[in-house]
């Protein structure tokens, strides 16, 4: 097996709730490998999104270590983490979260240029190609308000893929969509997951995604209670 893209060792996360400290993620070890579609499932408040945001270097773990491509990034600076997110990660949020002020083209190129770099011709070309491959070539200059929910989410997927990330993190990407749009988005994500150079982690409640998964993690009360790659973990619970 190849080296993991992401390694998490003994990760915990506490939240300060007024005077109390509440642990939302118990000691967790996790490796994410390229070419894998990992689903994280569990009831609301179980710690799925907390785990995803720690994976995405957005939330800092209270304890433990996070490695990206075998490099310890746990104590990396804010700027370093922002650079890592921009270069290595793609995010697909629950509600697409396109910037309403920007056109589709600007939305999908914004992360490439947000640190002040000029938009390179190859990026323009890639944006065009990606939009075409997702059937969105006619939406290039539209505003997000002019798109349907499914189209918005597909544009968000294009945005996530623009920088050719090695890790794609999706937070319930179909939960806000109707059945038809959900199916289109799921098919899209399924195709993306076939790329063996990239890992995909998806938080979802949608059982239709389960058949496509290479790995399923179930979380309850802040602990991984089932890992399809390590059935003994579930036995321990």
């Amino acid at each position, binding site marked *: 097996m190849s080296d993991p893209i992401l390694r998490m060792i003994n990760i915990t996360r506490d939240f300060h709730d007024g005077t109390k400290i509440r642990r939302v993620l118990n000691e967790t070890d996790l490796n994410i490998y390229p070419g894998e579609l990992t689903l994280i499932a569990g009831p609301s408040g179980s710690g799925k999104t907390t785990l995803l945001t720690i994976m995405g270097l957005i939330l800092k773990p209270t304890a433990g270590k996070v490695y990206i491509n075998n490099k310890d990034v746990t104590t990396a600076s804010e700027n370093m983490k922002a650079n890592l997110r921009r270069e290595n990660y793609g995010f697909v949020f629950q509600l697409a979260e396109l910037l309403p002020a920007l056109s589709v083209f600007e939305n999908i190129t914004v992360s490439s240029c947000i640190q002040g770099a000029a938009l390179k011709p190859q990026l323009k070309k890639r944006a065009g190609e990606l939009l075409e491959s997702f059937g969105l070539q006619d939406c290039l200059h539209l505003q997000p308000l002019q798109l349907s929910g499914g189209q918005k989410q597909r544009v968000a997927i294009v*945005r996530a893929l623009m920088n050719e990330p090695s890790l794609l993190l999706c937070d319930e990407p179909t939960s806000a969509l109707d059945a038809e749009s959900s199916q289109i988005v799921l098919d899209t994500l399924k195709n993306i997951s076939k790329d063996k150079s990239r890992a995909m982690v998806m938080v979802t409640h949608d059982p239709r995604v389960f058949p496509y998964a290479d790995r399923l993690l179930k979380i309850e009360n802040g602990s991984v209670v089932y890992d399809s790659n390590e059935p003994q973990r579930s036995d321990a619970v």
Partner: protein
Amino acid sequence: MRSLVALKILLYDRSTTIGAIIGVVAIVFLVGQQLSVLFGLFNYMSVLVDHSETDIWICSANTENLNSSGLIPERYLERVSALSEVLWAEPLLYGGASFKTKDGRNEGVQVVGIRNPSRAVGPWKFSQGSAESFFQYNGVTLDLLDLSKYGNPKLNDICEINGKFAKITAITQGIKGFAGRMVFTNIVKAREILNTPPGRCKAVLVKLRSKENLNAAVSKIEELLPSAKVLSASELSKKTRFYYIKNTGMGGSFGFSTLIGALVGIIIITLTMYTGVLQRQKDFAVLRALGARKIDIFVIVLSQAFIIAAIGIFIGFFLLALFLYATYESALPSYFPREVAPVLALATLVLCLGGSLLAVRKAISVEPASVFR
């Protein structure tokens, strides 16, 4: 791209953008308008000195401003005229008087008596008549802006000033003093109106052969006339303005109004930009999650402040120009020196950027994790 994002968000949030621009316009226009009135009054305060085209003023001892000068011997004229540095010297009579209107009212005027209008303190702009009118014994000028106050007298009408008859032989245009409306006449008529004793005058005005020797000439005249106050024209102008600002409470009043104008603007800018950032919190969180650093968010919000400032300053100065045009040669004192414009623009930019700091602080404190909740 950061500036483009800044601009696009501004265009998208039109109401917020317009609100913030109104704040900038308020600063430029309200402060500019207050300053223009203040500078207009400055001009009124020292109007005679500034238009005298002379280098040195000889006044009575302890003179703090032109209006407070007492009478001095007219023989000073001959004494300074004898100096090699002096090109010419002219006497000036100046004082308050009462103009009786056709309907019997009394209006306060400042009578200016001069000997040679082509040299010192002659009226510099005529609507009707000319400088030659001064050689008529009873001839006086009135200003076009004040004619309605005097009951709309016409050229060659007879009027009464301090109980003395005079003939209106010229109408000046836009000549106004701080202490009252200005009536020019020849020195003989002024002496009669103002009841000035023979051999006395209010000031002696001196034109030097060369301005390079101004300080030396002032010292020389001070030695020659130890009981008089000898001031360069620019110094007397400054002293007169400072005297009025200090003693009339005008400085404090205008300073306060200017401050209020700036405060109103900065409050509008701060609140609208802060509201704008609150509305776009999610967008900033998304940008942060996608890889924007805090500095990138800082640049976006500051770029917005800069764009708002640029547009607001442009509109503000346009409105200010309209105001100045509308009040040009009106009774309202308004004058805006060109060199003040860049200072006001820069100060407004600084205020606008300062007003955006709260919004900047809010924007960079947005947690990217919030987009997942």
